[in-house]
């Protein structure tokens, strides 16, 4: 009973300790955000001192702009595609590297290695790999008698290749999270299931996956957010091309602001991206909250 009353003196005056953080977030995130909302309602070109307010025109234009629609679709593919790939392969890797295997910690180290590497450099490496002439992938294609493929042409293929590159780089994160999750599942569940005559596949389906729901949740949210803001890899490989075919919202904003000098439109696009990501993470969080289980 006394603890509650004593709290003020125990922690008296410590609230001021979050002021620096609050000021920084206020100055470098919230203030620009508010200014961004204002800029998105103008036709500002990014440098001239004069501009006009044009209301919601930038936002309305987005709905009829084919580039934007395509970019939104690409961004969703980058986000959701990477999420599926990373979650599935991360899970399989964790399952495999959790079992009896000599040198498994060594392999974990290597699978995790790409995570710490600059995504820009990773993009360049895979660009060299998938290059049309002299690329390693086309060497293989010719070796098996097929025609060389222009992996970054045609938009859709480029989007898939880039999604793959991003997933390859970050599958290690999913693996580590799943490994930690696997180690927290008590042996007795599996022992009981074995006694009841459940096979390995059944055990994975009925015990492992349901109990890993929190880990899956963490992974999905992380991968969606990371994938939707993909930037570095795209710059390193296609730079959004050909044309606007593999542009993500991030790279498109960059080119609108600095190349097309349409800052107002770029700001509006930024807000659209924010809304999409907030909606998507909100939906996913809700979906997962209803799915967490408690085996006793």
């Amino acid at each position, binding site marked *: 009973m006394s603890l509650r009353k004593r709290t003020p003196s125990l922690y008296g005056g*410590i609230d001021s300790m979050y002021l620096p953080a609050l000021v920084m977030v206020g100055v470098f995130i919230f203030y620009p955000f508010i200014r961004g909302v204002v800029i998105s309602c103008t036709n500002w070109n990014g440098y001239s001192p004069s501009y006009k307010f044009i209301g919601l025109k930038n936002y309305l234009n987005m709905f009829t702009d084919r580039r934007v629609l395509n970019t939104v679709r690409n961004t969703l593919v980058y986000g959701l595609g990477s999420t599926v790939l990373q979650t599935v392969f991360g899970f399989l890797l964790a399952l495999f590297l959790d079992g009896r295997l000599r040198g498994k910690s060594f392999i*974990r180290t290597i699978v995790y290695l790409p995570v710490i590497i600059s995504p820009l450099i990773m993009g360049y490496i895979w660009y060299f790999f998938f290059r049309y002439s002299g690329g390693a992938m086309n060497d293989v294609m010719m070796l098996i008698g097929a025609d060389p493929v222009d992996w970054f042409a045609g938009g859709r293929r480029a989007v898939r290749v880039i999604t793959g590159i991003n997933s390859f780089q970050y599958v290690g994160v999913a693996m580590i999270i799943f490994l930690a999750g696997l180690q927290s599942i008590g042996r007795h569940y599996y022992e009981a299931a074995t006694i009841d005559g459940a096979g390995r596949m059944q055990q994975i389906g009925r015990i492992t996956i349901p109990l890993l729901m929190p880990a899956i949740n963490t992974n999905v949210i992380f991968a969606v957010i990371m994938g939707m803001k993909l930037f570095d890899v795209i710059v390193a490989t296609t730079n959004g091309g050909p044309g606007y075919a593999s542009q993500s919202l991030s790279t498109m904003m960059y080119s609108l602001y600095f190349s097309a000098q349409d800052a107002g439109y770029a700001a509006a696009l930024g807000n659209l991206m924010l809304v999409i990501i907030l909606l998507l993470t909100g939906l996913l969080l809700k979906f997962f909250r209803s799915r967490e289980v408690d085996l006793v």
Partner: protein
Amino acid sequence: MKTVFRYGLAVFIFLLFLIPFYMLFSLAGKTPMDTSSMWLPPRYIQFDNYLAAWNKAHLGRALLNNAVITAFSVFFIVGVGAAAAYPLARKKTRRNRIVGMVLISCLIVPPLTILVPLYKFIVDIHGLNTRWAMVCILVTFQLPLCIYLYKNFIQTVPAELDEAAVIDGCGPKTTFLRILLPLLKPATSSVVILCGIQVWNDYQFSVFFLQRSEVHTVAIALSQFVSQFQNDIGLVSAGCLLGLLPMTLVYLSLQKYFVKGLSEGAVKG
């Protein structure tokens, strides 16, 4: 038979994840005349590409810039973040709950969504092409994650410890510095590793805010170098290899902490 399959699979995974590094290494070792496949290693040893890349990409200067920016950023991330997490974890008043929610919810704000206004703001405060503005931005965008990790960790430290310290005559701030901060080492190593990687590898902010070559970081220096010399793929590969070497060496020598710090950060969260 099953064992053979397991080890076969293990070797396959191992090779798969080494491919990008092998390719880079193979390309960087070849002269421009050598057009053999990327799959084949060079049949001679030469370091010309590395030397030329180091000089032409100005990697020395870029590494120094990167080191300075990363060191200052990580220092402030830990300092500002840990301090903010303490009242948020310990004093659950209504106001603090709201403050905590506001700070941590910034985690899902993709930095580039506010690029346009942020760029304008940085120009207005004369922060373009300065290392201090870069540090400010990087710190701000890492703070939500840092506060989140520290807050969760502090909640696992019994509050009785704080009480004992206060009874022994410590003020709340001394308690934080002397008692709590040393206990937070596992969280601190998570934060340093997670945020350190992102700050070190940053490209999306650097490309906008560090445009002058004197302040270029490794990612920016390399991107300009690659677009300038893209026809000399050996040279470019050597540059990339040198660029990812520092972080790789740090990772391989401290991997135990990396994996631990990361899984703890992710699971506690």
